[in-house]
């Protein structure tokens, strides 16, 4: 009992959600909150700054305020893309139990597995010599992928009020948008778009 009270007091909503998604989402849906657009933006900004700081560490072996902000601003389209993927499922839900801004805020909480994964990989990159093999990065990435999908499915059921089957469908749609965008960027980054850009003379 004491342990439970302690964890209630000490653990963040993100971690509680990661460990007990359905119960935590139920509690969060019942909470009365104000200013949720700001809170949604604050969650997005936190993930962006976390990304900026961790990339600075892995890419340069140090971290400064300027470097973190440069990286965060450069890659801010990632958060916009996450918001777009969120909009695809949130705006379709007719039985949503919270307002739109609160729904975005609660969806952003579901990215905690990726944040924990990024922290772990950064620690490995800093400590491993010379680098963490790319195969290790890709294979271990399956864990946050599945974990996040479970959280998004719970979000759909508990916050958007969908059935289990619809939750699975929306989760697939959400992940499809995110990974479609990611693969599109990777394809662009390795020059895959070049023939298309040449065709349209860009």
């Amino acid at each position, binding site marked *: 009992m004491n342990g439970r009270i302690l964890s209630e007091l000490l653990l963040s909503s993100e971690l509680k959600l990661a460990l007990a998604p359905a119960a935590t989402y139920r509690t969060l849906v019942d909470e009365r909150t104000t200013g949720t657009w700001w809170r949604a933006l604050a969650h997005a900004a936190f993930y962006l700054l976390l990304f900026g700081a961790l990339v600075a560490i892995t890419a*340069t072996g*140090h971290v400064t*305020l300027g470097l973190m902000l*440069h990286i965060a601003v450069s*890659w801010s389209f990632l958060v916009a893309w996450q918001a777009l993927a969120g909009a695809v499922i949130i705006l379709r839900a007719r039985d949503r139990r919270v307002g739109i801004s609160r729904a975005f805020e609660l969806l952003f909480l579901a990215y905690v597995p990726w944040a924990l994964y990024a922290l772990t990989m950064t620690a490995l990159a800093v400590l491993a010599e010379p680098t963490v093999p790319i195969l290790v990065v890709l294979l271990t990435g399956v864990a946050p992928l599945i974990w996040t999908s479970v959280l998004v499915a719970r979000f759909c059921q508990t916050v958007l009020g969908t059935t289990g089957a619809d939750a699975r469908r929306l989760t697939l749609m959400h992940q499809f948008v995110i990974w479609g965008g990611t693969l599109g960027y990777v394809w662009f980054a*390795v020059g895959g778009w070049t023939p298309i850009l040449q065709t349209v003379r860009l």
Partner: protein
Amino acid sequence: MLSAALVVAGLLAGTWSESIPEAVARRSPAGEWILAADFHVHAFPGDGALPPWALRHEAARAGLDVFTISNHNRVSTARLARWMSQQSPGPIVIVGQEVTARGFHVIAAGIEERVDWRTSPADVIRAVHAQGGVAIAAHPIRRFWPAWDDEALAILDGYERAHPVIDQEKTRAELAAFDARVRTMHPGIAAIGSSDFHWTGSIGWCRTYVLTRERTRAGVIEAVRAGRTVAADRQGRLYGDPALVSAVEAAGGFIPPPAERFRWLSIGFVWFGLLGMLVLA
């Protein structure tokens, strides 16, 4: 609050302890400038982590005088970086492309327009030369060897003798084998050290010392074309023509980036702070 304070303290410590080495004016016994260069760097937008403006700052921090942005089959980011570099002092930025084909990769440095990769290595090299650039065989490990025929090797300007893969025994031997083959055919070819920087390691991890008559882009390209380079790996081992290696050693050899006093402290504070912000109420 404590977690956020840790992050802020870490960022301040990192910012405060950051050191940018002063550009060292080193000369070879023959009077050439010895410039530290990295010809293989990826940038954002592209598959690099850092945008051009942050990359140039990091290049200066790594003690580089010159670097080439060489994204895969694209030159737009490199051109943007060069334009931005003209607004302030700092390392010279050279426009480049990693010509990325199925069986080979070539660094095209000193070009203006994208080079078509859907052809043979020899034709890629000729296209690079037609633009006034130099062509460097990128990470020529075993799986790329079949593409490197004698025709291509005869007109190649340089090859990556030092690349981060040199840290692994198998690929170190493969780079050495390519070196032996190419030098038999083309003794004056430029030995290049590159970081192939994307998301990890750091820019200038492996580097090239260019012995150039003038501290300009054109001077650097001319020196590579003439083979006046020495490759360095991150342990400071030098590779290339023994006379040029001696010249670089006489001028002080490999100069590692300066150590930053609070680097580990700042990384630790930021990392634990972010973890705390994520998992603690």
